[in-house]
């Protein structure tokens, strides 16, 4: 699939935003002063909002985007939209509560955190629900999204703790390292097994030409690229993809972990780690699309 930067940005940044928001509402950062509330709240809303806005850049008719809230009964994209709106409303409400009244009760915090998680889950299900992309259509796909949101969120919390001068514990740092490691660990497994057996569709099942020998495409229906090929025919060489996986792993996991270990207390260090992590997530997300194969490519000559 052709990686679209607007979508990569959308899922990565909003993922980070929802992850951060979940840890925030669970109380991993102290929000006492208004600056802290509005600062952190603003940051979270900025991340989520920027992500959502970015997703509309992908649309042919962004002015109609509001219609996307209507089909939540059947559409994961619609559900994600509704949930994102609810999540933002909930966060606004939570923030107002903190500002005006104080820390909300535990059940509310847990509910809010769950709402963030479910929103991330819905985002990932937009892709994971597609049977046409074998790599995406795997139980580990939403797990990856959730774990990246969680790990990124934790790293962001660590940074905020440093930035706001709040105390950091070794245990928390360890949690951050574990979160990053396990997120990338699951990702590594996902890279190995997701879609490894293909979509189940082959040139034979796509054309019904069985018993005639190996089927192959000898002439495309058109000599210049069409929408399908442009969107879904993107192919990345195995060597290139392997290299990028390492880059993603390094930028998104290795280097941030190193920085956390070496410089867990400094806002600069963790800030850098967060940026590197996001860069790594961008690369990972880019690969998420680039390495994805759609069944339509079978019609254009792939065997499966």
């Amino acid at each position, binding site marked *: 699939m052709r990686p679209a930067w607007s979508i990569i940005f959308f899922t990565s940044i909003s993922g980070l935003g929802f992850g951060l928001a979940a840890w925030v509402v669970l109380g991993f950062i102290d929000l006492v002063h208004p600056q802290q509330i509005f600062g952190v709240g603003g940051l979270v809303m900025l991340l989520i909002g920027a992500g959502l806005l970015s997703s509309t850049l992908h649309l*042919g008719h962004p002015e109609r985007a509001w219609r996307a809230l209507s089909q939540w009964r059947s559409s994961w994209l619609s559900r994600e939209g509704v949930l994102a709106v609810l999540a933002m409303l909930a966060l606004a409400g939570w923030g107002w509560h903190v500002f005006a009244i104080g820390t909300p009760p535990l059940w509310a915090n847990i509910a809010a955190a769950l709402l963030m998680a479910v929103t991330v889950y819905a985002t990932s299900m937009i892709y994971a629900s597609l049977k046409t992309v074998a790599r995406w259509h795997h139980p580990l796909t939403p797990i990856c999204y959730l774990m990246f949101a969680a790990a990124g969120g934790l790293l962001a919390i660590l940074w905020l703790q440093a930035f706001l001068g709040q105390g950091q514990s070794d245990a928390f740092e360890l949690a951050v390292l574990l979160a990053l490691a396990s997120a990338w660990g699951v990702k590594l497994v996902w890279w190995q097994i997701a879609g490894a057996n293909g979509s189940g569709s082959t040139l034979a099942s796509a054309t019904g030409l069985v018993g005639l020998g190996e089927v192959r495409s000898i002439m495309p229906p058109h000599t210049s690229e069409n929408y399908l090929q442009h969107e879904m025919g993107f192919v990345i060489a195995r060597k290139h993809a392997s290299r990028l996986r390492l880059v993603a792993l390094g930028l998104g996991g290795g280097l941030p972990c190193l920085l956390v270990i070496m410089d867990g207390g400094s806002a600069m260090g963790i800030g850098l780690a967060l940026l590197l992590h996001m860069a790594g997530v961008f690369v990972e997300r880019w690969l998420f699309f680039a390495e994805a194969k759609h069944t339509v490519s079978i019609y254009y000559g792939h065997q499966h």
Partner: protein
Amino acid sequence: MTSLPEPSAIKLGLVIDLDICVGCQACVVNCKEWNTSGYGAPLSDSDAYGAQPSGAWLNRVHTFEAGTGADAKVVHFPKSCLHCEDAPCVTVCPTGASFKRSEDGIVLVNEDWCIGCGLCAWSCPYGAREMDPAEGVMKKCTLCVDRIYNENLPSEDQVPACVRTCPTNARHYGDLGDPNSEVSLLVAARSGFDLMPEQNTKPVNKYLPPRPRRAANDTPMSLLAMADEATPSGFWKWVDSTLEKLG
């Protein structure tokens, strides 16, 4: 409305005969010319005269080949929306623009509501949907919904453009939900099949397989030998006796 409607009794669709399609692209181009001035926005073509022309089309003809050597079999393969019963393109649509008609099962895009997110194209295993480069909405086969009920057309022309134009008669239109319709009988007689049945979309359109050929090295039937031997004298004997019988 993207929740699928109750399955309708009427399931309009096409039957494509792979035994007869010669890959002439008539259906492809006729569909383009009918629909560019028909349902919804025109079917645009970007860089129409340039280095990378790319347009929105609703029907494409691929060419595949199976086997090797003298037994190789080339198959020309038209592909357009299969108007699936379990259309994933309908359920993924966030705005309800992509819908399946309860009256006749045709899957359509309501272009006023389409936000051009492209998700339906991603969900379609068959590549039946293409985004229009100028309009930013999704385009797909409409089963010529603007022809099949159109009182401005003579009744014999109230069929999809591709069916009317196909020179080899490789495209058939009708109600696949009626087991006694011409198309259903055709499917039964020729063992019509679904594309990618494992995708569970339950396509309504059916494909008829190429009729089997005999293998290139099958033993030939021997010529009905009427001559005694393959020698000149034998031949003339036969000529003479044949002329004799004719009188």
